[in-house]
């Protein structure tokens, strides 16, 4: 084989993947950025309007309201998922009986689509046919409008999210836990450290890389939430559970304001990038404190 051909080989191998990325990720990302500086209703040609979309976004009350709700959602989902999945992983890391069965059962919701999960919980939480309200009434409480009261709806979409994803992050934590050498624990035990001390002094610090991955992934995932909400509440009642992606979808596909929707997308992307950077930054600095 000629050298020339040999040089070309790796490029040919990466080509299909690169092409799809260029066409369906890189180009749209740039295109979206460009569109965010235009006014476009699909029918007529796009018109360059400079920063006008951004100005109207930042001066729109509904944008801040949606953003605030999205942050509430994310800042509830992330720690809850973190604590739940870590607790499950710690439990399975003890050499208890039936742990592989438990692991499989914890993981089951993570296998199911957001749509199916949404339907399932709507069925369970229905106002006058849901089994939860039946059980509440049986126990002498009043039934609750889980998906029809704004604050309960917010609570429920958070809870269901945690329920749906905890099993997945549990697996990541388990791998992290198993990579911690038992030598540390043995030494700690000899020094008379309690289980509690071992957790705070050994497990948690050594689990930091894994924790960071879990926080970043759950955070990004929660910011992007769309399907679960579409099925469970369609953003309601009112706009109680309307988050950023859903708002973008509405501006683009229901109101046909593509420029405005694109500008919102850019803002969302910036928020995502910023938060990830902050998280890694905190982790870097925190790292020195331990060492």
């Amino acid at each position, binding site marked *: *084989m000629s050298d020339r051909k040999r040089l070309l*080989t*790796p490029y040919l*191998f*990466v080509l*299909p*993947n*690169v092409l*799809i*990325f260029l*066409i*369906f*990720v890189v180009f749209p990302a740039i*295109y979206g950025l460009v*569109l965010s500086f235009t006014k476009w209703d699909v029918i007529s040609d796009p018109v360059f309007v400079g920063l006008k979309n951004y100005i109207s976004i930042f001066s729109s009350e509904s944008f801040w309201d949606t953003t605030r709700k999205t942050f509430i959602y994310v800042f509830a989902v992330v720690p809850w998922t973190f604590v739940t999945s870590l607790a*499950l992983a710690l*439990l*399975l890391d*003890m050499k*208890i*009986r039936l742990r592989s069965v*438990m692991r*499989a*059962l*914890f*993981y*089951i919701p993570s*296998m*199911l*689509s957001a*749509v*199916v999960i*949404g*339907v*399932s919980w709507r*069925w*369970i939480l229905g106002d006058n*046919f849901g*089994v939860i309200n039946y059980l509440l009434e049986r126990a002498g409480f009043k039934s609750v409008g889980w998906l029809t009261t704004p604050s309960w709806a917010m609570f429920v979409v958070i809870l269901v999210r945690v329920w749906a994803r905890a*099993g997945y992050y549990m*697996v*990541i934590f388990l*791998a992290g836990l198993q*990579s911690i050498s038992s030598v540390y624990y043995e030494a700690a035990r000899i020094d008379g450290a309690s*289980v509690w001390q071992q957790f705070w002094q050994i497990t948690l610090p050594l689990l930091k890389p*894994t924790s960071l991955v879990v926080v970043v992934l759950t955070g990004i995932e929660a910011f*992007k939430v*769309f*399907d679960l909400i*579409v099925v469970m509440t369609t953003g309601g009642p009112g706009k109680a559970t309307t988050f950023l992606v859903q708002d*973008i979808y509405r501006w*683009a596909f229901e109101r046909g304001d*593509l420029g405005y929707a*694109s500008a919102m*997308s*850019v803002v*969302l*992307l910036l928020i995502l*990038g910023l938060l*990830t950077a902050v998280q890694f930054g905190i982790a870097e600095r925190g790292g020195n404190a331990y060492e």
Partner: protein
Amino acid sequence: MNKWSKRLAELSGLLLALVFVIPVLWVVLSSFKSGYEIFAWPPTFLPENPNLGNYVQALKKSNFGLYFANSFYVSTLSTMLTLVINSMAGYALAKFSFRGNRLIFFSFIATLMIPLQVILVPIFLVVKSLGLYNSLWGVIIPPAATPTGVFLVRQYMITIPDEIMESARMDGASEWKIFWIVMMPLAKPVLTALTIFSFMWRWNDFLWPFIVIGTQRKYTIQVAIANFVGQFSVDWNSLLAISVLAMVPMLIVFLIFQRHFMKGIALSGLKM
């Protein structure tokens, strides 16, 4: 750890497992209840006379058979495409040193930061102008180039010794043959994991088909279910039956390939 705390841990583990399973189980049980029993107050736990009435009704009344077929078609073809192009890219990035290798690798990983959700508008326009709007190919091709897949294959193939390729080259095998006949079989563990994941991603995917597909006949099962929920009066009997059917392939895949799942998640989560 003493015996009692171990028993306590086991007990709480089992209780927690119930929290994760009972909601799913409740939906499955409800789906086998007859028309009125489903709304019975007080509700019955086990179906009084379990039957497939809801399933028959759901499949007869609407096009759910077709939606399932669409989902299988999309998930299968997209997974095949993912396997081929991701392993080609992963192989090149693992086994060739060439100009741009690192750049391409990190760009792949960086695209994880640009989820579909933030490029909804331009993606829609691109898909439309390429003539892929309302075509199942529009659901199959774009999401097939997964960064996670490239990453997994690359990490795995790095561990395969170069000598194997070199000796095949000495024997005069073409580059394509080396990849296809020598490397692919060696990468079987990672390819199995990728197959399972890809199939699950595509089967469960909602947003891509939701954006790309416009007419009912091309709905995938997830879009069809979401659309069904949105209707004014929800037909819960059919809806629950269909939702259970949509769970079944995933549960089967999970039962068979559980180990691969756990390994795959641990790999992709930890190293990224």
